[in-house]
């Protein structure tokens, strides 16, 4: 009931404000139209005066100046702030051993310091030591062993610099911090996941970057009866392309 009243009030407020915006828009449009009409009228008057002047004006010049007015068309400047790439590495799933992980990352560079990054990765968890020692015991099915995550993170470039290769090559590079939130699907359940980590990025050219990243993905798990925070540390190397 309370929600109903809130919904009603918010709807009324929203609609009334839209009404104001539309009214302003109509008023602005009318003003613009009036201005346009006035300009047209002025142009017509000027034209009439011009014709009058033309009749009284001296005869046209024999040589017409052959100068073309220079017109500049401003081409759109390409923005290159988006970075998309693939990566591969090792993921240590707490209690389930270390296994290969592969994934996709996409980043948007907002300023020279900050970027916004999305990550998606897949791995398959191994066997716990209990399973290995216990013989035929299976805690999870093969499907449940699949470890899939996605994350939205904010990154901060904290040590920008240059990396040198011999005498002739200098490549821009940076260390960065990452932190964000996301979801991990593991053992048949989706879990809210917080991630934090750091990475190093070097750009051999303006379009290609090579990354090395270490991230900890932390989520709550009650797989073994007690609810506990699990740390799943991941190290990856990847290549991205700037668009």
């Amino acid at each position, binding site marked *: 009931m309370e929600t109903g009243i809130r919904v009603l009030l918010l*709807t009324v407020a929203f609609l009334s404000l839209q009404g104001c915006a539309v009214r302003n828009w109509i008023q602005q449009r009318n003003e613009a139209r009036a201005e346009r009409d006035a300009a047209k009228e002025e142009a017509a008057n000027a034209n009439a005066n011009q014709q009058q002047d033309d009749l009284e004006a001296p005869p046209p010049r024999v040589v017409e100046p052959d100068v073309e007015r220079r017109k500049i068309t401003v081409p759109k400047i390409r923005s290159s702030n988006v970075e998309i790439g693939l990566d591969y590495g090792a993921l240590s799933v707490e209690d389930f051993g270390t296994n290969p992980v592969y994934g996709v990352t996409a980043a948007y560079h907002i300023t020279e310091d900050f970027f916004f990054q999305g990550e998606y990765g897949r791995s398959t968890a191994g066997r716990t030591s209990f399973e290995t020692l216990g013989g035929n015991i299976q805690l999870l099915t093969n499907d449940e062993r699949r470890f899939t995550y996605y994350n939205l993170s904010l990154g901060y470039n904290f040590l920008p610099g240059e990396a040198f290769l011999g005498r002739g090559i200098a490549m821009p590079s940076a260390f960065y911090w990452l932190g964000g939130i996301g979801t991990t699907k593991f053992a048949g359940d989706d879990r809210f996941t917080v991630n934090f980590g750091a990475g190093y990025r070097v750009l051999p050219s303006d379009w290609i970057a090579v990354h090395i990243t270490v991230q900890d993905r932390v989520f709550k798990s009650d797989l073994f009866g007690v609810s506990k925070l699990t740390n799943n540390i991941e190290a990856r190397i990847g290549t991205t392309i700037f668009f």
Partner: protein
Amino acid sequence: MCLLIALLVAPAMGVAREYLQVFVTEPYLELRTGPGRGYPVFTVVARDESVDILFRRTDWFKVRTERGVEGWASQQDMQKVVLANGALFTFPLGDRAGYNSHRWEMGMFAGDYGGATLISGYSSFYLNSQLAAELSLGQFLGKYSNGTTGDLGLAHIIAPEWRLTPFLMIGTGFVHITPKATLVQPAERTEQTAYVGGGVRYYLTRRFFLRAEYKAHEVFTKRNANEQVDEWKLGFAFFF
């Protein structure tokens, strides 16, 4: 003088240029080795000489001089260069003026969706400085059920020129609910929703702002009574 000569000669040198050519009006234009304030200045372009703008990355422009040297020029310096016709080179700066009026914005949130933890992202397209079409997608993780939700609607920014400004939202969407495994396993379901809501946004710096919002969802179920779900979330966003 050089500028004048360049102006006279330029039309003869091929009309269609691939890149925009701009001319330096300050005593010199500094070029750095990388797109950041800490990279060293390795060359300068003298007054009245030109550079071609190759592309832009965040607040830096990659340019090429007449001699073919490539380097990075800062946004502040590029505000002082002119086009071949003498007009100032203008471009979106990504500052407070951009916050007041922009085309696109994107952001991420963490919050609460009917008692479940919510993670969501959104994108807005501004029809004018006050009215935006918004798309948001989220995933919620609860004790008894998980699910995804998506909304499409309109947002009205009440006073875009204020640093802290309220806004209102209205729209429609869906919710897909996956109950967690129990003895009696109820089926997954997808329902249509409608929402109204409000919130505030606060300009931080550069292209960033904070955004907090509340949405009251009406979930149209196939049962006799509809459900109401409250959504609260806080996040940060940027515009471009």
